[in-house]
């Protein structure tokens, strides 16, 4: 690997880290297509590198988000159980669907979620009345000097989406944040920043479970993975800090754009192959 291509990979990892940490995505949605289509990396090597990048992003942004009290540990744990079951069951369901069907289903889901996020970008999930009981899974959130309360609604929808996210994470090399964050924000009443921080906190664990399989099989392209991960570390630290300064509305619009973009690409891939 030449020095120039190493630098390109570090920068690729860094930009993935910035966007991933801001939106609670691991970054697999950008990294896998970029590595395979633009740089000609074999798919297994690209997925493996992307999983390590997810772990780097998740762990690094958690160090910033924990400090700010943005990670909702209980909600994350509850959703992670669903994700892990989904991960175990995913293979069974996916075996009955063709790659084409999988792509079309997820593309449609993402495009619909993108449109929902766009429409709802002006709405807020937080309640200014701090005497309101957040419930077992809800929480409090500080924005500037103001303390807000949020409650978790429609937990079933959140658990269901986590189950689906777990199912596809290993298959498509995605962390699953791209499904969980919009659902938590649009349907379950979780503020976008908390949804993103909680998602990044948990997807590191999901990714570690899948990444170990690639690692033990020797599918990991070590110098490539190292370069991308070394970029993702400072990138995600920057992204986690940036998300504090960006308005929640802008974060939602950014998320909607990512959903429409990724959904559109998957639809093309599903319909053309």
């Amino acid at each position: 690997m030449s020095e120039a291509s190493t630098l390109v990979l570090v920068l690729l990892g860094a930009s993935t880290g910035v966007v991933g940490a801001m939106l609670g995505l691991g970054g697999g949605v950008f990294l896998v297509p970029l590595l395979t289509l633009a740089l000609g990396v074999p798919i297994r090597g690209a997925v493996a590198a992307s999983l390590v990048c997810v772990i780097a992003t998740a762990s690094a942004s958690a160090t910033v988000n924990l400090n700010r009290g943005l990670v909702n540990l209980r909600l994350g744990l509850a959703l992670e159980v669903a994700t892990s079951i989904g991960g175990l069951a995913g293979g069974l369901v996916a075996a009955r669907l063709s790659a084409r069907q999988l792509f079309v289903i997820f593309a449609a889901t993402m495009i619909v979620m993108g449109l929902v996020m766009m429409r709802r970008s002006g709405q807020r999930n937080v309640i200014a009345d701090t005497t309101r009981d957040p419930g077992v899974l809800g929480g409090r959130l500080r924005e500037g000097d103001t303390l807000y309360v949020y409650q978790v609604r429609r937990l079933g929808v959140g658990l269901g989406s986590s189950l689906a996210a777990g199912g596809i994470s290993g298959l498509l090399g995605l962390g699953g944040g791209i499904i969980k964050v919009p659902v938590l924000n649009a349907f379950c009443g979780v503020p976008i920043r908390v949804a993103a921080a909680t998602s990044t906190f948990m997807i590191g664990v999901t990714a570690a479970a899948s990444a170990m399989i690639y690692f033990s099989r020797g599918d990991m392209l070590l110098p490539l993975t190292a370069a991308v991960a070394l970029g993702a570390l400072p990138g995600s630290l920057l992204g986690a800090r940036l998300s504090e300064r960006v308005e929640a509305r802008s974060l939602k619009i950014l998320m909607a754009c990512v959903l429409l973009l990724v959904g559109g690409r998957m639809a093309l891939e599903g319909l053309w192959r």
Partner: protein
Amino acid sequence: MALIRPRTHSGHNDPQLAGPSRLDRVVEIVLSGGLLLSAALLLAGLLSGRAPLLWLGVLVMLLTPVARVVVVTAGLVLRRDWLFAAVSLWILGVLAFSFYVAWHVEAPRTRPAAAAAGAR
């Protein structure tokens, strides 16, 4: 001195919901430590071109979230938050299961491939 603050009644005023708790701090230290060690190994491996350093760096990176789950589980037990401690233990179990599958089911199938990757 208790390492982790005891949980307040039924958890509704749980300090971690409004700001960082001691458990958050411990988790932060574990994550930062794992990442720093991994980054140092990966950087040294890339600069020197030595594959074993890269291999070790990636391994440390993969084990960082595992260490995080272990610490959170212990923290929840110390807080006597039994329900969520059980949930966390389940996640640890899933991780252990997938690591077992990785090294005892998947890896033996691809021994030659793994050896070739090590030499790369």
